């Protein structure tokens, strides 16, 4: 008698798991990324699909009080204005900085109806959001700062993003780049920040403009922005994956 009861329960649990799994899978398959080859990267992809399938995509990352703001360590691949910096140096950036970024423009290209170049004044007209958020580094440390900037979604909409667009690649003058999917690009807290803790973005925090993606780990936040390229296909702009890093870092 007991044995029989156990079986029906077990069957019920199994059926439950199978149907939930099937539901999740059908919802997620479309979101799978094409570039994942080895076992570690398949684990990353599973995390990406699960987070996209289960978590609320509009939920805001925790916003803090002014009194929570901490000191902020700068870690990057080098100063793009310093010729001694082998990896990051850019002559163009050095000249822009010498002129206090008066001639700086952000280029928006790719799958948009109106590709173009935006000056800082053009960008500031598109909107503004201020948020006190936590920067979470993959190394394990974290820092809280107040950021003010233009929502990336507002810029993409202004540039007339096309329906086929799926990813946004963001490149900095320091030869660093990252790409994010549309859910993160249009997340309300994903901004192009020009102000940090109430001051014009300091040089090494990514002047004149940097990306803030609050739902991912620190290294997605490209600094010293140069251009934004909207793509229909997956482009690993870092590249993260061939360097041995996870492309999606919501965890």
């Amino acid at each position, binding site marked *: 008698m007991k044995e029989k009861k156990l079986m029906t329960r077990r069957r019920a649990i199994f059926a439950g798991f199978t149907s939930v799994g099937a539901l999740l899978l059908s919802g997620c398959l479309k979101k799978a990324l094409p570039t994942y080859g080895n076992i570690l990267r398949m684990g990353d992809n599973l995390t990406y699909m699960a987070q996209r399938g289960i978590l609320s995509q509009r939920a805001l990352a925790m916003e803090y009080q002014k009194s929570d703001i901490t*000191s902020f360590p700068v870690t990057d691949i080098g100063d793009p204005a310093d010729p001694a910096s082998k990896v990051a140096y850019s002559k163009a950036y050095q000249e822009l900085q010498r002129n206090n970024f008066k001639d700086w423009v952000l280029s928006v290209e790719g799958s948009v109806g109106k590709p173009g170049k935006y000056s800082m004044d053009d960008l500031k007209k598109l909107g503004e959001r201020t948020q006190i958020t936590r920067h979470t580094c993959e190394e394990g*440390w974290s820092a809280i700062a107040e950021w003010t900037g233009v929502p990336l979604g507002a810029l993409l909409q202004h540039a007339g993003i096309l329906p086929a667009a799926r990813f946004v690649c963001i490149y900095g003058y320091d030869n660093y780049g990252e790409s994010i999917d549309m859910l993160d690009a249009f997340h309300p807290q994903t901004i192009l920040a020009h102000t940090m*803790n109430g001051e014009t973005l300091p040089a090494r925090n990514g002047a004149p403009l940097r990306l803030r993606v609050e739902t991912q780990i620190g290294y997605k936040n490209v600094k010293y922005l140069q251009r934004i390229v909207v793509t229909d296909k997956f482009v690993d702009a870092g590249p993260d994956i061939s360097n041995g890093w996870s492309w999606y870092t919501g965890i």
Partner: protein
Amino acid sequence: MGDIQHKRWVKGAHFIITLSFLALTVSGYVILMSHPRLYWGKAGNDLTPALFELPISRNYHHGGWENRIQFKHLTGSQISAVRTYDIFNQNGWGRSTHFLAAWFLVVAGLIYFITGFFSGHFRSNLVPRTKELGFKLFWHDLLSHFRKPVYTGGKYGLLQKITYLAVIFFLFPVVILTGFTMSPAITASYPFLLKIFFGHQSARTIHFFSASALLLFLLVHVVMVARSGFKRNILAITFGK
């Protein structure tokens, strides 16, 4: 007094959880090596005071800082400064291995949890009987762990039951939930995690201590397995009948 007959699903879950725990320990150590400083509170980094620092990485130095900036609009003395040193950082594979192994742990753990609850495994094998509870019996059971030969009955002892229950219902849930609390995307959807573990860095510190406690459990567990008949116990939990 026969040996414990483990169910097949118990053996399977035990096997997967053991392997994933070992992978999580190694990759967790690698991740910790790139920043072996632990903090309490919402955030913490090299420019803020630490709770303590572990001497586990040769390549992690507190080097110099340059381009110090004090923020005029802030009332505190927060600064931004550029790190002048390279650190040990193998986090690319460390993180991906950690999260891949965590998938196995979470899925196998969830199946074990649900099956253990509905099949009566927890009730009949792990929850202590009322007559077992009592200081004298507890003391007797504790002492018996240091005697030779160790008591090897067909049922779990009192101390053994309490330890297993603490591992299954406290340490593993805490280590998994504090792991979730370090994820920016998960905490955006479930901000209560940041509240119950006192912030991102507190969660990281609790994650470290609960993982250490699990490692300590593993060591004691293996010692007791060896002392109470290694071959017999290993067969019982793996491929033996």
